[in-house]
């Protein structure tokens, strides 16, 4: 059984206040730029360019060093990061001025704080000569920042504001999507740990590991690498379960079905890219695309999670809110 009701979240919205469609479009633009930033960051690691510019915040004491050799990747990453930082300032200010929901405004400022901290971590990891914990923190915070910006793009969309919660069969997809997002996030941290600890080729074959299902754990690098593969299997299982559940129970809801199916395909692509990263001895293109696609998987699972929480309310909760919501609609 399902029932369509007014959006409880819209109660936070003052009457007559309509966030600009341009604000949403701008948030989407910032999200796309952030995806490019993730790609540029992946490129730095894939090309081994992380220390090609030894100083920070300047580059060889200059704002714009000669773009030669690996400086192109490291300084290019810094330029994209600076641009995204500037865009995030504008986004936070714009949200503060036009966004009626306090939580969304706070999320804008959180994005700004995250991007500033991310810049500092990036500088720190260069000055400290890429210590693994700092580099992994930099990579993980980058994914977190991407999640915040994607959330802002989603929360400011007209579709989000128009969405009406339904009841019935709600909890399972919400749980599945949330679990998937959590596993993907942990997997991205494991991937960052693998990359930054030099364990990317610790297991040189794929899909087997040293010709076996479980490799001999002779070094920490092998363990870190294998943990990434085990988590990849967990992500795959969670993505398949989520996709099947969406197909069986939410076939008519495109906003849930589309990200669920997209996730399945992205995870398949990710596994193939991971294989190519190993078969090509970490060639730059497949390895960097593996990083970018990982971020897209996280963003898609987050979108699915947020939408499932938005669109699917537990029946008891709907019943509890019903009188209040109907009264609000009447007034």
């Amino acid at each position, binding site marked *: 059984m399902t029932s369509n009701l007014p959006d409880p979240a819209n109660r936070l919205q003052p009457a007559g206040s309509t966030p600009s469609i341009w604000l949403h479009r701008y948030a989407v633009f910032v999200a796309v730029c952030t995806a490019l930033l993730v790609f540029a960051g992946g490129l730095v690691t894939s090309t*081994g360019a992380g220390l090609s510019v030894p100083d920070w915040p300047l580059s*060889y004491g200059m704002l714009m060093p000669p773009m030669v050799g690996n400086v192109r990747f490291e300084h290019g990453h810094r330029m994209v990061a600076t641009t995204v930082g500037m865009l995030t300032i504008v986004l936070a200010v714009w949200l503060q001025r036009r966004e009626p929901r306090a939580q969304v405004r706070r999320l804008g400022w959180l994005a700004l704080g995250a991007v500033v901290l991310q810049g500092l971590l990036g500088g720190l990891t260069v000055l400290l000569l890429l210590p693994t914990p700092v580099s992994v923190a930099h990579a993980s915070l980058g994914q977190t920042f991407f999640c915040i910006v994607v959330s802002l793009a989603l929360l400011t969309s007209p579709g989000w504001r128009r969405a009406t919660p339904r009841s019935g069969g709600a909890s399972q997809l919400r749980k599945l999507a949330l679990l998937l997002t959590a596993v993907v996030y942990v997997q991205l941290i494991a991937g960052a740990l693998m990359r930054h600890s030099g364990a990317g080729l610790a297991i040189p074959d794929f899909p087997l590991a040293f010709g076996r299902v479980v490799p001999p754990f002779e070094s920490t690098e092998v363990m870190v690498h294998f943990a990434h593969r085990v988590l990849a299997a967990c992500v795959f299982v969670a993505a398949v379960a989520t996709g099947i559940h969406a197909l069986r129970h939410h076939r008519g809801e495109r906003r849930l079905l589309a990200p669920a199916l997209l996730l399945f395909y992205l995870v398949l692509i990710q596994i193939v890219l991971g294989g190519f990263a190993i078969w090509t001895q970490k060639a730059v293109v497949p390895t960097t695309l593996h990083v970018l696609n990982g971020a897209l998987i996280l963003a898609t699972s987050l979108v699915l999670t947020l939408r499932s929480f938005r669109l699917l309310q537990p029946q008891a909760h709907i019943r509890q809110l019903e009188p209040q919501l109907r009264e609000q609609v009447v007034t």
Partner: protein
Amino acid sequence: MKFAVRVACVAFLTALVGWGCGGGGGDSSDQGGSSAPASSAGGSSSAGASHAASGATATLMGKVNLAGAAPERNPLKMTADPACAQQHEDMPALAQDVIVNDQGMLKNVFVYVKNGLEGHEFDTPEEPVVLDQKGCVYTPHVIGMMVKQDLKILNSDPTLHNIHALPKVSGNKEFNLGMPRQGMEFSKTFENPEVMIRIKCDVHPWMASYVGVLPHPYYAVSGDDGGFRIADLPAGEYTIEAWHERYGTQAQTITVGDSPNVEVSFTFQSTGS
């Protein structure tokens, strides 16, 4: 008197062999023939000097051979930096990891006394060891130096480099310095022995150099003809190790006695391309 004559003869023969092998002094790298470290002649302390005074020193010399087919030296792709590529327009620079001459002799092997000098102390040479960045390659590719000796790093290229040392022994500090202008120089030292410390340029990924840091001056790097020469080695029993960046290490035990020359050779096995 007889003793003085014997010392003079040993010194004369040593100088003759050194001259004949083309070593004898400063450069341990790109000259044809054998090579000897600058410090091997004058870096010995009183311990070494007392051995020399007694006449019980020898010159260790030999050659390093590569068995099997040598891998082809691939041209280095320098197109990512036009300033590098322009310096090799006439003839492309070739990979430096395995350099073998027509006779199968292997260049850039670091040969040194690994064991046998424990308890001796040696003065640190005042003159620095020079590592140049020229033509977007390191010159020399393999170099030896003593603990706390200055490593003078030059940038002779009309482009920027970073110089990134990657020691693994505790007490030797990793460093990463920017050298954006032609003619810049830095000096660095290493506090502890380490064979070998990799030095690389993260801007130009093909650039790598290896530095052997030792507490004594008894080391050499094989030259174009695969030859090496370590002079003034006191009498005793030693483990001599040869290190190559691709083929790893080999060790031999030798005894230095009355003979003024000791020959030792190493053969590394090619692993194909």
